Every structure is written in structure tokens, then in C-alpha cells.
């Protein structure tokens, strides 16, 4: 029941769903949601390997830093989204066609 494989399958599903969210949604905030799912899939893998394969806690440290970086990424990404909305009055990703206004 609880084995390395089951954790990896859950992580795989999370990754694929995150990727599909990133591809199929046109709202930039939703794309950021997809990125969060993908980062979580990676962090879950690290912890699962740390318990079932290695004997140390390096995997925990890795997923700790993944969470830290995900938070920083969300902060900066959402700031960009807000700025984009102030300029373009929309957050449709297809409207983001210029590098500067």
C-alpha cells in the first residue's frame, strides 16, 4: 500500500495535472497555480526518496528550499501579473506580446 511507487505515482499525477493547467488555462494566475503543483510534485519526490532510499535527511532540506523558492517565485510572479494588469487591463496570457510598452 504505502510504498515508494505509490508516492511516485501521486507525484506523477500532480506533475501531469500541473502541466495541463499550465498549457490549457489562459489566465496568468492559473498558470502560476500550475507551477505550484509542479514544484510540489518535485518536493514530494525528494521526501519520498529520502525516506525509502537514502538514510539521511538531505531530501527534507531540498524540499524545504523548494518551498522557499516556490514562495519567492509566487511573490515575484504575482507582482508581475499585477503590473501587467495595470498596463493592459487584462490577464489573458495571449495579450502578453510585448517586452516593453
Amino acid at each position, binding site marked *: 500500500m*504505502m510504498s515508494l511507487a505509490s508516492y511516485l505515482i501521486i507525484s506523477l499525477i500532480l506533475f501531469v495535472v500541473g502541466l495541463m493547467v499550465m498549457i490549457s488555462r489562459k489566465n496568468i*494566475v492559473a498558470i502560476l497555480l500550475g507551477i505550484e503543483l509542479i514544484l510540489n510534485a518535485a518536493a514530494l519526490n525528494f521526501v519520498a526518496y529520502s525516506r525509502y532510499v537514502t538514510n539521511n535527511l538531505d531530501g527534507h532540506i531540498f524540499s524545504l528550499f523548494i518551498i522557499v523558492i516556490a514562495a519567492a517565485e509566487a511573490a515575484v510572479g504575482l507582482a*508581475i501579473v499585477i503590473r501587467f494588469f495595470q498596463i493592459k487591463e487584462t490577464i489573458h496570457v495571449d495579450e502578453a506580446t510585448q517586452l516593453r510598452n
Partner: protein
Amino acid sequence: MFLEFLFISSAVLTVSCALGVLVVKNIMHSCVFLLGSLMGVAGLYATLGADFVAVTQIMVYVGGVVILMLFAVMLTGGTDFISRAQNLLGLAPSMGNKWTYGMGLFVGVVFLLTNIKLLMGLTQTLPTKTINNEFPSTVTEIGHLLVKDHVLAFEISSVLLLGALVGAAIIARPRKQN
């Protein structure tokens, strides 16, 4: 017994809420589904004995990232955006014809089956390690790792966060409308 229960419920929560993020049109509801998915991942960490990482997940995501996302959704017009087609069916015509969809489905199924086959075989090939249900305290161990082995990453992460703070504050700061 209890761990199995926790594992199954967390896994169901994680996967179903992730699917919810995908299919729900309303972006506000998507954020709440993301919250459920992240809580499920925290539960999975708990079943792996990673108590500190689980609580960190709750603290950073529930207390921080999800609230920030909700704020950003409110700032960018709330749910006014849902009039546009956002779900897969609404977007389907613009993404390709039946051949591309057929190819995509085929590749997806092959990818999924291959991965599941590989992962299923993984348990036999790995060195069998006796897994006991004793969860020793991870906090002191993580603390020692942070100040000894990973001290550089620990210090640099603070600089990274400072950079993120300054950069995001500059980008998001209200300025003169022109």
C-alpha cells in the same frame, strides 16, 4: 492502520483537488482547490515522517502563497474574467484538429503507462530497506544540517528572499498613471 488511512485520504485529497484546479472555471475556486491539494501534500509529508516539512508546507502555502494568490485574483478583476472560455472544452477548437488531439492522447497514454510500469518495477530493483513506523524527530537533524552541511544554501536563501522582496516591491508598487 491509521497511517494507511491518513495516506489514502491525503492522496485522494491531493489528486482530486489537483483535478479541481484543472477543470474549475472560476479562478477563485481554483485557488481554493489548490489549497486543498497542498494540504493533501502536507498530509503525505506527515505519512513520510517529515513533520517539519509538512508544517512548513502548511505555514508557507496556507498562510502565505494562497492568500497572496487570492489577493492577486482580487487585484486583477476578481471573477470578471470567467466570461472567457477557460476550460479545456471551450479552448479545444483553438488548440488543434482531431489529428493533433489523437496524437496528443496517444502520447499521453503511452507516457502514463510507461511511467507506471517503470515505477511499479522500482520497488523490486531498489535495495530493500527495512521501513519501520518509528518516526524520529527531524527538527534537530534538519537544524544541524542547516548550520553545518547546507549552511551556504541557508545563507544564500536569505539573500534570495531579500532579492525577491525588493524586486516584487518595485514591480508592484503603485505609481503614477499615465
